[in-house]
């Protein structure tokens, strides 16, 4: 039985239970090298041209990608897909990034564009649309956001009214910032039937009454199309209702789970590419008579870029492995939806962690390039602009942060996760909490594993206190909720980084991963105490505050280590490989 969603906060798994990139099958590795070849030969040479949205180029690339099967990883075989699973789907998402904006079009098409039909479509809809979506003959877009309903997605105003003859729904309203809008043949969108019942629809491009707004002028991902969808008595056949009337929110939120997780994978791919560019540049840029790669401050950047990439990559493939395990016998329909939504927390973590790792990486990439980083002729400038959207679309990182504790709380209430019991047990334990003592079992990362165990206790401690104080009104305390979310995100990231290193170590391949994991844990850990202090000072006053602060301090104590030498070593590996290496 794979670990349940969110349960990582309550229990530990052994390294062997976690899927890692080192567990790729021969097929996974061949998919990886094939997609990398395709990206280098067919996509990368077009990345610059795509920025100007030349007529037909993106479509042609999508068709080529479709021919190869790069659009069909998540589509069952009976509907023309290749049914490759989520690990392969991540490998593809990661490796198409040399195509620049192509990766955005690809991600929106295969994720939120296609998955709603795979998961919620009826037999006719799947037969009608999935083969075309798999081959690239059809391109999909996903339209949820409206001018006045962004994060507050359920507040959409687009209405659907059944025509007098009962054959059509007439849609009226407008959707905004829709990726792939100008390119797409079908649109997954949402409207409220009779102004109330939130419902999903499949809208074809040539629908009477449906039109597109102007192309938006964006900060980045300029090669991808972003336009509004305009519905003016748009006649959508009743057969194109997706899922049940009034159950559209299930589609909206579940499609986003997969979308978020794949976005995390795409971010990991971009991190690696950015690091490769930066490492190569640092090796050839000479200042003060030597390549800047020889300087400690540049090495510091390269090492931390690698460590954050490593943690995000470990998280993404851990989740991919889980999803493959739970969907092995259910690829579509309600059973698959339920299996995937079990990992909603982890999908949000992948999105937040991946997009923020990428923003860090591209920021340092620009800095390594120095003045050239600010010039469009060099790659850093586009990476920097293109990265920024990832923290905004497919649910802002703020919304994703709010979702994490909310989902945990809901599952705790339903008795699916025993948080209350664990928090109570901790309350007893915490009074006699022993000072820091790393386990001495002869295995590496002893201190880091202990830090991780303490971090989980800290989450329970703060979460327990917050719930006790605010009960069901906790959601109003967004800053506290976000602290809990950050704790959960970093616990998952640290744990994934550490477990992957231990698993590789057991196979005799752990050298680099152990150091990357150590660097990551020690980089993040000081934040935990800061977050804890902030939360405690808000939750408590006077003597109580002092008592709780001292508990938080004991929970976040650790033995500092020499990170400068560790970073130099990691940087040396990156520079030797001239790219991300584990």
């Amino acid at each position, binding site marked *: 039985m794979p670990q349940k969603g969110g349960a990582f906060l309550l229990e530990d798994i052994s390294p062997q239970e976690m899927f890692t990139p080192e567990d790729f099958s021969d097929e996974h*590795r061949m998919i990886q090298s*094939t997609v990398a070849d395709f990206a280098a030969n067919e996509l990368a040479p077009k990345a610059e041209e795509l920025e100007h949205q030349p007529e037909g180029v993106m479509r042609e690339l999508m068709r080529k990608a479709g021919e*190869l099967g790069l659009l069909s990883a998540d589509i069952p075989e009976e509907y023309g897909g290749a049914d490759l699973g989520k690990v392969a789907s991540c490998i593809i998402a990661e490796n198409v990034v040399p195509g620049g904006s192509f990766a955005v079009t690809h991600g929106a098409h295969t994720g939120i564009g296609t998955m709603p039909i795979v998961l919620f479509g009826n037999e006719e809809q799947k037969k009608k649309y999935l083969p075309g979506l798999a081959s690239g003959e059809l391109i999909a877009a996903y339209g949820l956001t409206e001018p006045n309903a962004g994060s507050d997605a359920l507040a959409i105003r687009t209405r659907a009214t059944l025509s007098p003859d009962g054959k059509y729904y007439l849609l009226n309203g407008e959707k905004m910032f829709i990726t792939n809008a100008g390119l797409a043949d079908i649109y997954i969108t949402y409207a409220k039937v009779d102004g109330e019942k939130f419902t999903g629809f499949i809208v074809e491009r040539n629908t009477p009454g449906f039109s597109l707004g102007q192309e938006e002028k964006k900060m980045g991902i300029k090669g991808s199309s972003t336009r509004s969808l305009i519905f003016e008595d748009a006649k959508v056949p009743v057969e194109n209702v997706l899922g049940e009337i009034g159950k559209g929110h299930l589609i909206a939120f579940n499609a986003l789970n997969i979308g978020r997780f794949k976005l995390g994978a795409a971010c990991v791919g971009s991190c690696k590419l950015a690091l490769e560019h930066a490492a190569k540049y640092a090796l050839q840029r000479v200042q003060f008579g030597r390549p800047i790669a020889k300087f400690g401050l540049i090495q510091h950047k390269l090492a931390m870029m690698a460590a954050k990439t490593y943690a995000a990559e470990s998280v993404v493939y851990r989740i991919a492995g889980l999803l493959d395990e739970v969907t092995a016998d259910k690829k579509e329909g309600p059973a698959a939806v339920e299996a995937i939504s079990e990992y909603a927390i982890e999908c949000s973590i992948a999105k937040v962690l991946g997009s923020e790792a990428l923003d860090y990486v591209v920021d340092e990439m620009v800095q390594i390039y120095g003045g050239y980083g600010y010039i469009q002729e060099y790659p850093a400038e586009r990476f920097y602009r293109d990265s920024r959207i990832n923290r905004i679309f497919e649910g802002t990182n703020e919304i994703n942060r709010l979702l994490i504790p909310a989902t945990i709380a809901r599952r705790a209430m339903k008795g699916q996760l025993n948080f209350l019991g664990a928090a109570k047990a901790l309350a007893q334990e915490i009074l006699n909490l022993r000072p820091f003592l790393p386990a001495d079992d002869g295995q590496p990362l002893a201190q880091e594993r202990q830090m991780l165990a303490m971090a989980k206790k800290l989450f329970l401690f703060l979460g327990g206190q917050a719930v006790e104080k605010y009960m069901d009104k906790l959601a109003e305390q967004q800053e506290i909720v976000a602290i809990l979310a950050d704790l959960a995100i970093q616990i998952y990231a640290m744990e994934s980084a550490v477990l992957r290193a231990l698993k590789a170590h057991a196979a005799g391949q752990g050298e680099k991963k152990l150091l990357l994991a150590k660097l990551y844990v020690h980089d993040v850990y000081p934040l935990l105490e800061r977050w804890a202090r902030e939360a405690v000072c808000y939750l408590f006053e006077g003597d109580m505050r002092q008592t709780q602060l001292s508990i938080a301090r004991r929970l976040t104590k650790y033995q500092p280590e020499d990170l400068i030498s560790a970073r130099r070593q990691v940087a040396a590996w990156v520079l030797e490989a001239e790219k991300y290496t584990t």
Partner: protein
Amino acid sequence: MKIVVLPKQTFDTEAKITLDAAGKINREGVNLIMNPYDEFAVEEALRLKEKHGGEVTVVSFGGPKVPDILRQALAMGADKAVHVGDEGLEEIDEHTTATILAKLLRDLEYDLILAGWRAIDDGSAQVAGRVAEILGLPMVNMVIKLDIAEGKAVASREIEGGYEVVEVPLPAVITAQKGLNEPRYPTMKGIMQAKKKPMQKLTIADLGLGGEEVAPKVRARRYYLPSPRSQGKIITGEPAEAAAELVRLLREEAKVV
């Protein structure tokens, strides 16, 4: 039509070549690929099969990672694969490889044998020719266009200043030059199907070979890396002066004019 292709696993074109402590080429951590000229050969075999029907078998001799390139060929569309392992062979040369491949080929049915004209690692361009010689087959080298009809192969090859069109009876050995075709990428479905296709693993002993028969005729006495290129010189100044300076340096320093 039955076609056998002889791909070789080589270093990635971007691999950094280093020597290990024993002075041999270091294979640790190097990315291995199918020799690019052999990809042309696999692609041509697949196109011929698509046109005339038949079966494509890929055969390779080498170390434990060789199945990777065979799987790649299967994923591209080849039907079956045979890997002859190099267990027990300390050193090999083109004679070793050709002897082994030819021995195996005697047990296979074929109308056509395809290979890259050379491998990008040692670049010896000998194995396909030796195989043809051992099997007593006609061979056309460095082919850029190939047509098969009525038991004959009509192959075009580049020669200085033009093309030569050669006709040979089948079975024959044909080696591929760049320009013959544009190799396809394996499709995702192809990759998944490849693991269901037969891949046979043989040892040299299974072929009834060993000892002197496969001992290399050539031994590399020493490997060494090329000396690093000395830094280039940039001549600045007015074009006329710069040209004069360039000529002076070519004459006095480089001693080439």
